[in-house]
């Protein structure tokens, strides 16, 4: 084959990969937090008895989930400025990933909401809580416990989607790896190390989520 593995260049530039990874994680955390807030509101809208709430929520989820995220990333960065909305690279990517996460998490949350017995809402009403208080103190906390396992895979998936920010030159992990690759011609080594970093981070996220799940499990 004539290709001898030599990781020296990659190790020399390892801090750049770590910085990239840190940015990837930062993008994911901020986007997913915003997305979770959107998803929660949209999930309640999806199961609302008011058509005026169900309709826009359904359109949002359907449109966003049926678009490739790369298309959204490119649209937000290149098309929106033409329409007078100017965001820098990072802002535009966070906005896209937040909106994208919102649609996926809305579906996860909706499934969780459907599994909560109606009697709990009635018990809340009976002691005089308002529907809003019931959502925040009873329904949402129970729903989050229910959906932690499926939320874990959604979060991992969304973290991996940060690699698409490379398309608009956000210096996250994939972008940094490509730069090192181009500068050093160490193709195999660079991508092996970058891949290992992705895998390790995802495994860590999964472990943390399992821990959270265990912590929040209802005592019996």
């Amino acid at each position, binding site marked *: 084959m004539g290709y001898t593995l030599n990781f020296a260049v990659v190790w020399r530039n390892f801090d750049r990969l770590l910085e990239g990874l840190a940015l990837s994680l930062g993008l994911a955390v901020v986007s997913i937090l915003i997305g979770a807030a959107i998803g929660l509101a949209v999930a309640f809208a999806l199961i609302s008895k008011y058509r005026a709430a169900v309709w826009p929520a359904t359109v949002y989820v359907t449109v966003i989930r049926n678009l490739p995220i790369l298309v959204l990333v490119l649209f937000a960065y290149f098309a929106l400025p033409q329409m007078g909305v100017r965001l820098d690279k990072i802002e535009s990517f966070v906005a896209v990933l937040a909106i994208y996460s919102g649609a996926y998490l809305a579906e996860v949350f909706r499934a969780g909401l459907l599994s909560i*017995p109606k*009697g*709990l809402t*009635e*018990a*809340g*009403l*009976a*002691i*005089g*809580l*308002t*529907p809003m*208080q019931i959502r925040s*103190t*009873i329904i949402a*906390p*129970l729903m989050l*416990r229910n959906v932690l396992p499926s939320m874990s895979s959604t979060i991992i998936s969304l973290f991996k989607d940060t690699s698409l920010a490379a398309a608009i030159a956000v210096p996250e992990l994939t972008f940094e790896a490509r730069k090192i690759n181009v500068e050093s011609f160490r193709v195999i080594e660079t991508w092996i190390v970058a891949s290992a970093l992705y895998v390790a981070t995802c495994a860590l996220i999964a472990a943390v989520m399992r821990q959270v799940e265990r912590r929040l499990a*209802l*005592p*019996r």
Partner: protein
Amino acid sequence: MAKTLLEIAGLRKTYGTLEVLKGIDCQVHEGEVIAIIGSSGSGKTTLLRCINMLEDFQGGTISLDGEEIGYHVEGPTRRRKSEKDIARQRALTGMAFQQFNLFPHMTAAQNVMLGLVKVKRLPKDEAHAIAVKWLDRVGLGDRAGHYPGQLSGGQQQRVAIARAIAMNPRLMLFDEVTSALDPELVGEVLQVIKGLAADGMTMLLVTHEMRFAFEVASRVIFMNQGVICEDGNPREMFVAPKTERLAEFLKTSSFN
């Protein structure tokens, strides 16, 4: 005669074309303990649920302490009150459910405190003291820190009763509170209800426990097909039913 607490007049409830309550008229006086009996589908649970607006209703009025529940009624027009007003009115009645409906992510004490803190706006320590007092009262003072999943059905139901009663309601509604319990756990729950009755709490109980109704109720309402069929003193009703329907119903109900 004691003061009238609850006044139901011409109450009608429909699901689409199905009429479940066909004009209920009834007065409840302070301190009365009323057992509502009847076969399933007679509308007894629906009646209870209308009283605290867990069900909307289409005709008639329900007033608690002279205040109309759920709707502003002016002549022929009726308008549902705001969620906030309805929530305030619901807090005036307590309700215990067949399925207990405790909040599974909260301890027994937290279940009881929730309404005190969020609805009555009491400080946490004060709410906790009240919660512990009522848990003690239902015999569960030592279970305050337990979660519903760690309690038996009978214990859960007693916590649920404490949660309702801690709000200091004007009226307590019990909806078949022993139907989901194993037979050996029924007694402890009925004991708690007896205690509340002895304290003079006004109560409406939908129940299948005929013996209990006979022992504890000061008055029995027998419902059949969406109307009140018979209404009176348990001794007379159980011993000498005036209507064929009630006689029939009592014959098919077990008295143990």
